[in-house]
């Protein structure tokens, strides 16, 4: 089980203090073993940063990540290294996820070399055969270099690498946004099957609402670095005005508010500039509240 408490991340540009971006802002998140949390939001809302914080690839500015009750921030580097194989990522761009100068087979087997102490005695050739069989690659494709494979084939290789050591937790960061619909269907099916087999937790980051509905046991909606709504059926019956807006993208003329409108609301609600039912109270910090079967960050929902 993976849990993040009060996570925040600020990025600051090197020249001058003015350009400070709060990419993740006071987020509580919890993903149980075998469970999938679908995280949706616009480009730039902080969903990838949140995923990387959970994997301990980015250190949060504030807040802590717990894995099975152990705080990752207070672990010794050696302890952390021994735990690393349990967290994996499948990224959006399969073409940059693999080393271009290694064969695909070398990349798939890299975890075995890194965690050699743990995997001692395993026959790498057999492991490779098992893994490429699981993800549906041909042996001759594994012998090639990344530039010789298509996007869908590469993503299969990336998945093979991610599941090679039976991880406890996988972040899938828009794994199919660069793929065709027909390829997307087979990759999603593959991810579902392998996850069920391994029983690992999964954070599925996407901006495709239909995929979020299919993949997520729960869905969390992110805006301006904050989770604004989280629960089981929130896309069918949204409570937060922003969730209501994204499930009906054809309202109005379809153009978004000017980009500057987001993220400039200080502590207030990030949806304030575009919210149809805003009022004076929206300028105050919004707290996450339980509401029926979900959590919502909006003072109007109670």
């Amino acid at each position, binding site marked *: 089980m993976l849990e993040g408490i009060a996570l925040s991340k600020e990025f600051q540009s090197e020249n001058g203090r003015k350009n400070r971006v709060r990419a993740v802002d006071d987020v509580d998140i919890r993903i149980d073993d075998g469970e999938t949390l679908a995280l949706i939001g*616009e*480009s730039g809302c902080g969903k990838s940063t949140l995923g990387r914080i959970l994997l301990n690839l980015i250190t949060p500015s504030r807040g802590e990540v717990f894995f099975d009750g152990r705080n990752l921030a207070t672990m010794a580097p050696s302890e952390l290294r021994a735990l690393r194989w349990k967290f994996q990522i499948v990224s959006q761009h399969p073409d940059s996820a693999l080393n271009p100068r290694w064969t695909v087979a070398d990349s798939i087997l890299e975890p075995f070399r890194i965690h050699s102490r743990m995997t001692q005695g395993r026959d790498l050739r057999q492991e490779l055969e098992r893994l490429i069989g699981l993800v549906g690659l041909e042996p001759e494709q594994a012998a090639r270099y990344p530039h010789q494979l298509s996007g869908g084939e590469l993503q299969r290789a990336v998945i093979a690498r991610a599941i090679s050591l039976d991880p406890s937790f996988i972040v899938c960061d828009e794994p199919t946004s660069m793929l*065709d*619909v027909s390829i997307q269907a087979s990759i999603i099916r593959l991810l579902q099957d392998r996850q069920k087999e391994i029983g690992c937790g999964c954070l599925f980051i996407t*901006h495709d609402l239909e995929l979020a509905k299919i993949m997520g046991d729960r869905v969390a909606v992110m805006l301006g670095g904050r989770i604004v709504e989280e629960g089981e059926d929130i896309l069918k019956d949204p409570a937060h005005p922003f969730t209501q807006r994204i499930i009906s993208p054809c309202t109005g003329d379809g*153009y*978004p508010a000017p980009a500057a409108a987001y993220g400039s609301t200080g502590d207030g609600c990030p949806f304030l500039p575009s919210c149809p039912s805003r009022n004076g109270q929206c300028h105050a910090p919004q707290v996450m509240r339980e509401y029926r079967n979900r959590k919502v960050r909006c003072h109007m929902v109670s």
Partner: protein
Amino acid sequence: MDAIINVNRLSVHFPLAATTIRAVDGIDLAVEAHETLAIIGESGSGKSILGTAILNLLPPTCTVSGTISYRGADLLSLTEKELEKIRGIRIAWVPQNPASSLNPSMRVGDQIGEILTRQANSDKESVRQKVLDLLEKFRVLPPEERFLEYPHSFSGGMLQRALVAMGVSGRPEVIIADEPTKGIDVINKGSVSAVFRTVREQGITLIVITHDLSFAHDLADRIVVMYNGRIVEIADSSRFFARPLHPYSAGLLRSLPENGLTPIPGKTQELDACDTGCRFRFRCTGATERCNNEPPLIRLGSGDCVRCWDHA
């Protein structure tokens, strides 16, 4: 309706050492004036090659046969000089991947104005004003600030809108857009659709190359489905999404998350040059003996076309 672009027996082949890639193979297509046509199909189906062929921007390594006529001229046999008067001015191209299509070291406003500065009697101030109007129209806001910025400070959706503004700047008759929604999130996709609706309302003929089916549904009058270098179906958009005729089209729709996320079995095969069967037969559940001979593109009573013996 009059055809504005007529593609006739177009083939684009890439000869390699051992084999020949038939990227586009014997395509006939009439694009009608003022319509919005979506060309859909998977990567490698030849849809982008068809788009680049219309602008005669194909790489020199390929062999081309057939004709593409536009207003009485064959675009494939015009000289570079004659093409310069058409490209970007009569027929504009909105390329894939906006982030790498713009010059990173040139201000966005200046790039959008490039076509305008090349036109006769254009002074700096009138070009600037026209560009500002375009930015305003396509919601690249605030225009005065965005004009002076460089591409890296734009978001993906905004870059795509700026590229469309650039495409429209020369007041073309036809716009060809290659994968305009690739990698753009749902919320910003609404704005890209809106931009193209604005373009359509100006009476511009629009050819959208995409594999985003919901975007095609949103926008197109007609759908052209390509598979493995061939057109397999040409359909009225509303009929297509309700009742696709070709097995590949039906498979595509079934692989959408909202329709059950069922993948099409197998994968696209590189076919031998002497193979004369239907190119989808190895993945088709309804394939029979007769599919070893490829059906022609069969014209139906409604004017739609489909390349499948089931509809002969």
